[in-house]
């Protein structure tokens, strides 16, 4: 077997990029991200002008952070919205065009088939990322963002994409129709990305003794698998940050700070994004020794990915191994 390139991956790439829709979608994607990037730039200018006035050197760094965080949030949303669609039809599509059995009866292992599907989707996603790299790299020109932050942010995007892609392939291997596969893929993506926020609200409601975040109580587990929370946690260390800065990540960062034992008064008096500062109680309290959220997120995503790929491979395997003992004259198979 040629180990240099998974044949399924090679064919998928060939098919995907020959499709007329691919260049159209990439063009629209670049234009869309570019436009949003420009709007984010204008918004960052407005916020910086309010916060620092004109001509202040710190405004450049702030704008860099603002744009960087907004673009990461945008790309994470794109991952949630696009990746399930890229993988949902991967296996069920083979069934529908009657090529599935043809693959099953070859020397390919089920895992090779599944991984070929996953990597082809990821290669397309990487193309989408690379195509908007200039827009995403814009914050580096303003300063205030380290290359390490960029790499960590891209890493979390890729991990989330691989995890959602694996779920999509698992659902595709189980589904009997394209519609069911797509519904399954997006259901899981929306649960992880958005329903977990609602679950977090419910958890806070039931766990909290009062109107404050239960920082010193139980862990709020629903935020752990959330891709936005995981990314913010990985990019911005709450213990090392200067507190809320009025940038897009503040929405999530405030949760992380509370979780580590700081108080932002966010849940108490509702100061809100941009106005939060470490409260007096929080400054005096020792930070909790809780591992950062991103560690849980990464662990959970790796586990989900492994289970989803394993489940998909089991579904892709031809069911010839399920044999019951023979009843009758031959006594067994």
């Amino acid at each position, binding site marked *: *077997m*040629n180990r*240099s390139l998974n*044949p*399924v991956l*090679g*064919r998928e790439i*060939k*098919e995907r990029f*020959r*499709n007329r829709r691919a260049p159209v979608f990439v063009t629209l994607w670049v234009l869309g991200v570019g436009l949003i990037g420009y709007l984010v730039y204008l918004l960052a200018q407005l916020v910086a002008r309010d916060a620092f006035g004109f001509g202040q050197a710190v405004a450049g760094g702030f704008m860099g952070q603002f744009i960087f965080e907004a673009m990461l949030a945008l790309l994470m949303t794109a991952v949630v919205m696009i990746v399930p669609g890229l993988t949902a039809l991967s296996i069920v599509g083979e069934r529908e*065009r*009657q*090529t*599935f*059995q*043809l*693959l*099953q*009866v*070859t*020397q*390919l292992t089920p895992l090779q088939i599944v991984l070929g599907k996953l990597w082809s989707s990821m290669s397309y996603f990487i193309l989408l990322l690379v195509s908007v790299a200039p827009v995403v790299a814009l914050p580096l020109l303003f300063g205030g963002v380290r290359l390490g932050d960029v790499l960590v942010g891209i890493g979390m995007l890729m991990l989330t994409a691989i995890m959602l892609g694996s779920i999509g392939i698992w659902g595709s291997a189980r589904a009997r129709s394209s519609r069911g596969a797509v519904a399954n893929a997006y259901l899981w993506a929306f649960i992880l990305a958005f329903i977990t926020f609602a679950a977090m609200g419910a958890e806070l409601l039931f766990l909290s003794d009062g109107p404050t975040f239960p920082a010193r109580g139980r862990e709020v587990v629903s935020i752990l698998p959330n891709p936005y929370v995981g990314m913010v946690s990985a990019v911005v260390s709450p213990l090392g940050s200067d507190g809320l800065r009025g940038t897009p990540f503040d929405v999530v960062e405030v949760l992380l700070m509370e979780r580590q034992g700081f108080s932002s008064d966010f849940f108490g008096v509702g100061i809100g994004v941009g106005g939060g500062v470490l409260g007096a109680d929080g400054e005096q309290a020792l930070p909790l020794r809780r591992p950062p959220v991103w560690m849980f997120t990464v662990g959970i995503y790796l586990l989900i990915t492994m289970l989803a790929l394993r489940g998909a491979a089991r579904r892709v395997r*031809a*069911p*010839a*191994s*399920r*044999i*019951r*003992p*023979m*009843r*009758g*004259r*031959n006594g*067994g*198979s």
Partner: protein
Amino acid sequence: MMISLESVEKRYGSVTALGGLDLAVPQGAVFGLIGPNGAGKTTAMLILSSLLSRDGGKVTVAGADPSRDARTVRRHLGYMPDFFGFYDSLNAYEYLDFFAAVQGVPAAKRRGVVTDLLALVDLSHKVDADVNTLSRGMKQRLSLARTLVHEPDLLVLDEPASGLDPRARVQLRELIAELHRMGKTILISSHILAELEGICTHMGVIDDGVVKAQGEMAAIRGAMTGSRRVQVRVADADVDRTLDLVGAHPEVAEAAVERGRVEFVLAGDDDTSARLLADLVAEVPVYEWRTEAAGLEELFLELTRGEGAA
């Protein structure tokens, strides 16, 4: 034996697809598996191709059990299902190249293998053609080429001639004959006997999930000695009465009226034929009584009698 199935059972819920199927395909044979729709042909082929589990029995293909050593079976086997499976944007060359790759053919050899196979199935002139633009016959030949990319010893072809025009059928038969000359063992299924009669060295008749008869073609033809197809011409007014009379005879099968004549298959020897004729003449004036030796079609009809087959 290249393929051996012993007492193989398969059920789909409460429906029994295979009820103790026995099948033996010798190495180098072109084995025709004939049976009506729903007889269990495809189920048997899926099981021996390692694509379907069985509920009982023993299966050996190229010395390996498909359920325990599927990779070995797949290395020796080229499977062609009864449907086309094509990728939208690949041409004929790329299609075969892809399947050669997934079958483990080294990249350095693939170009030669694919070129040779396209020549074998007479599709060299369609090397750059999108597979979706090929005719049904061409697609079928391309599918056959796909089964050959890894040089298997055994080909399992499920209804390969289904839906082909007469010219495409002739081409397919020639191709199968050529593959037989190349030493391949071929298991080929059909519900149309005429498709298999001229190309098979062996044949099995399957119905209701069991093999009713199998063996070399010559032996099967020999088993039919004594059976004959009979045509009776009577007056138009006597056709229905004649049909009732012969239809009631215990040795008669598949009695029907064809172009004003009563036709049926009669089992038994010349005495049986003479007695039936005498009985009939006693009831209605018989203008003509024509008999001819029974063929495989009669065997098929007799073995699958009462199942609404064919």
